[in-house]
C-alpha cells in the first residue's frame, strides 16, 4: 500500500482506473461525477493514455465499444440521466462480450431530477436498462477506499468474464473526501485486455478475420449466443457474490439490507437500536448483481423482520423480497430526491416497524 491521501471519491476512482492499467477514458461531463473526467483530463496524458470528451453519452458508449473491441482496457463515468443514454450501448457491449468498466455516480431522479445523491438506478443497473437478455456485474462501494479497491476488481472481472462491469456509487461516494491508500504493484498491469489477441480487431495480419458483432440473424445462432451468455451469467452468479454481514449471527429482531453510503448510515443506526436492546443485523450487498440472495435468505430465516434501506422509493427491496421467499416480512425504508436519512431517521423508522 502506498501513502495515505485525502482524496475525493471521484478523483480516487480516476486514479484507480490508471492503477488498473486503463489508458483510455471517454466521457461526457455531468454532475456529480465530472471530477473523474477533470482528474483524468490531467492524468491520462501524463501516463500516455487517451482522454477524450465525447459529444454525448450515446457516442461515449460506442467509443468504449470501439476501443474495447480493439483490445484496450477502457473506462467511462457518468451519472443517472447520462447512464440512461448508455442503455443501448450497454446491451451492445454485453452482447459483444466486451470488457469495459462504467461508473455511475448516481444523482436524484427521475428526469433531470437534481444533483443530489441517490441510489435510484438500482433497477436500471441490475435488471438492465437496455433491451434483450444481458447482465452487468454491478459493484457498490461504501467508502472511497472501497471504491478504489473495487475499481481494480472491476477491471479484473471485466477481463475475466468479458462483461461490462458497473461501479454503482451514490453521489456521496463521488463527492466525499476520505483518506485512501492505493496498492502498489510490482509490475504495472497492461493497458490491453489479456487474451485480446484471440478476438480483438487489431488488423488481420497473418490470420483470419476478427469480427466483433452482435447481430445473429440465424435464430439458432442467436439462441446459441444467448445460451453462451446465460452460462457466463450463471458462472458469475455462482462465483461473484460479495457482501458484508454485520452481527447476523443467531436470532435477530431485524435484519437490515442496505448498500453504499446508506449502509454506513445504517451502521450508526444499528448501534442506536442495539443500545435499545434490539437484536439487529445487517447484510450489505457489495455485488448488487449477482445479488447475495442466499445469504439474505439464510439470515432472514433467523430474523423477525427484514428491512431494505435505500436511497430510492424501493427498488432493491424487490430483490430482497424475492430472496427472503416469505421467510420473514420484508419492508422498505428510504428517501429519494436527494434527501439522505440520518441515522436517527433510520433507527426511528425501524423501531416503528418493529413496534407497529
Amino acid at each position, binding site marked *: 500500500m502506498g501513502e495515505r491521501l485525502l482524496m475525493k471519491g471521484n478523483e480516487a476512482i480516476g486514479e484507480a482506473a490508471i492503477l488498473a492499467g486503463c489508458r483510455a477514458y471517454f466521457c461526457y461531463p455531468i454532475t456529480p461525477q465530472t471530477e473523474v473526467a477533470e482528474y483524468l483530463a490531467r492524468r491520462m496524458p501524463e501516463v500516455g493514455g487517451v482522454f477524450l470528451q465525447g*459529444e454525448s453519452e450515446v457516442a461515449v458508449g*460506442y*467509443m468504449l465499444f470501439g476501443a474495447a473491441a480493439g483490445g484496450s482496457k*477502457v473506462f467511462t463515468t457518468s451519472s443517472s440521466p447520462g447512464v440512461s443514454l448508455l442503455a443501448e450501448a450497454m446491451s451492445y457491449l454485453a452482447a459483444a462480450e466486451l470488457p469495459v468498466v462504467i461508473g455511475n455516480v448516481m444523482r436524484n431522479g427521475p428526469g433531470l431530477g437534481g444533483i443530489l445523491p441517490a441510489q435510484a438506478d438500482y433497477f436500471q443497473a441490475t435488471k438492465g436498462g437496455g433491451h434483450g437478455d444481458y447482465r452487468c456485474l454491478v459493484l457498490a462501494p461504501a467508502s472511497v477506499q472501497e471504491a478504489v479497491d473495487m475499481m481494480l476488481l472491476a477491471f479484473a472481472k471485466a477481463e475475466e468474464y468479458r462483461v461490462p462491469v458497473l461501479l454503482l456509487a451514490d453521489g456521496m461516494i463521488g463527492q466525499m473526501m476520505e483518506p485512501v491508500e492505493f496498492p502498489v504493484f510490482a509490475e504495472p498491469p497492461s493497458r490491453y485486455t489479456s487474451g485480446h489477441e484471440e478476438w480483438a480487431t*487489431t*488488423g*488481420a495480419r*497473418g490470420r483470419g478475420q476478427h*469480427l466483433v458483432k452482435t*447481430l445473429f440473424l440465424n435464430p439458432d445462432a442467436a439462441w446459441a449466443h444467448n445460451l453462451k451468455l446465460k452460462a457466463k451469467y450463471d458462472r458469475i452468479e455462482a462465483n461473484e457474490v460479495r457482501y458484508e454481514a454485520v452481527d447476523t449471527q443467531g436470532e435477530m429482531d431485524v435484519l437490515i439490507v442496505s448498500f453504499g453510503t446508506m449502509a454506513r448510515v445504517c451502521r450508526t443506526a444499528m448501534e442506536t437500536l442495539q443500545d435499545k436492546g434490539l437484536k439487529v443485523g445487517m447484510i450489505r450487498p457489495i455485488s448488487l448483481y449477482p445479488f447475495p440472495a442466499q445469504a439474505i435468505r439464510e439470515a432472514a430465516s433467523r430474523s423477525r423482520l427484514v428491512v431494505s434501506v435505500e436511497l430510492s422509493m424501493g427498488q432493491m427491496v424487490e430483490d430482497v423480497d424475492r430472496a427472503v421467499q416469505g421467510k420473514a416480512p420484508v419492508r422498505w425504508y428510504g428517501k429519494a430526491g436527494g434527501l439522505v436519512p440520518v441515522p436517527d431517521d433510520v433507527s426511528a423508522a425501524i423501531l416503528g416497524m418493529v413496534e407497529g
Partner: protein
Amino acid sequence: MALTVFKKPEAMSKNITHYCPGCTHGVIHRLVAEALDELGLRERTVGIAPVGCAVLAYNYFTVDFQEAAHGRAPAMATGLKRTRPDLIVFTYQGDGDLASIGTAEIIHAANRGEKITVIFVNNAIYGMTGGQLAPTTMPGQVTTTSPQGRNVAEMGYPLRVADMLATLRTPAYIARTAVHTPQMVVQAKQCIKRAFDYQARGVCFSLVEVLSTCPTNWGIAPVESTAWLEQNMAPYFPIREYKRPEEA
C-alpha cells in the same frame, strides 16, 4: 498467355452478397477493397459496419471488422483509432445511419479531425428497413413514410452532408462521387484511394460520399436506377471534391 485484368480484389471475400440485383453497394464494397489492396493496407485495416443494408459488410471483406449500432460507427471508429493509432479504420455507412440518427457522431468525428475514413453511401432512402424517408430523399420522392412524396414545406430539403462537413474549420478530405456509370466508378475509386491515403499518412479525417442506387426501394429496375440517379440526385448533390486538407 491470358492475363487477368479484372477480378475480385484480395481484400474482398468470396461470399456472394445479400444485396439486391443491381444494388451499387456491391460496387462500392469492391472499390474499398481495391483501394486497400492497392495501398497495401489490408492487414492493418479495421472496418466498422453500419446498421443498414451494409450491416453484413464484414462478410465481404477479408479485414477485421466491428459491427456498430445504428449511426454510431464514427464513435466506434474514434474509440478504436484513438487507442490503436497504428490501425487504418474506416466506417461504411448509409444515409439513414450517417445523416439521420448518426448526425452528431459524424459531425463531431469530422470536427475533432479523427484520423479515420468514412465511406458514406447515399441512396436517398432507408434501404434495409424497406424504403422510408431519409434526410437525403429527393423532393417529391415517394417513400413508405412519405407516401405523397417528400414535401419540402413539411420535411425540408435533402441534407447535403459533404457540403455541410466541408464548412468545418478542421482540416479534412471531403468529396462526393457516384457509381452509376463506369466513368463515375473510376472516379469514385480515385476518391476512395485518396481518402485512405490521407489516413495512412496520418493527415486528416476523410469522407467520401458516394451516390448509390436502391433499385428495390426506388421501385425501378437496376438499369433505370442509374438514370434516375443521374437525373434526380446528381444535379442536387454536386459530384466534386469539396475540401482537401492542404487548403485549410
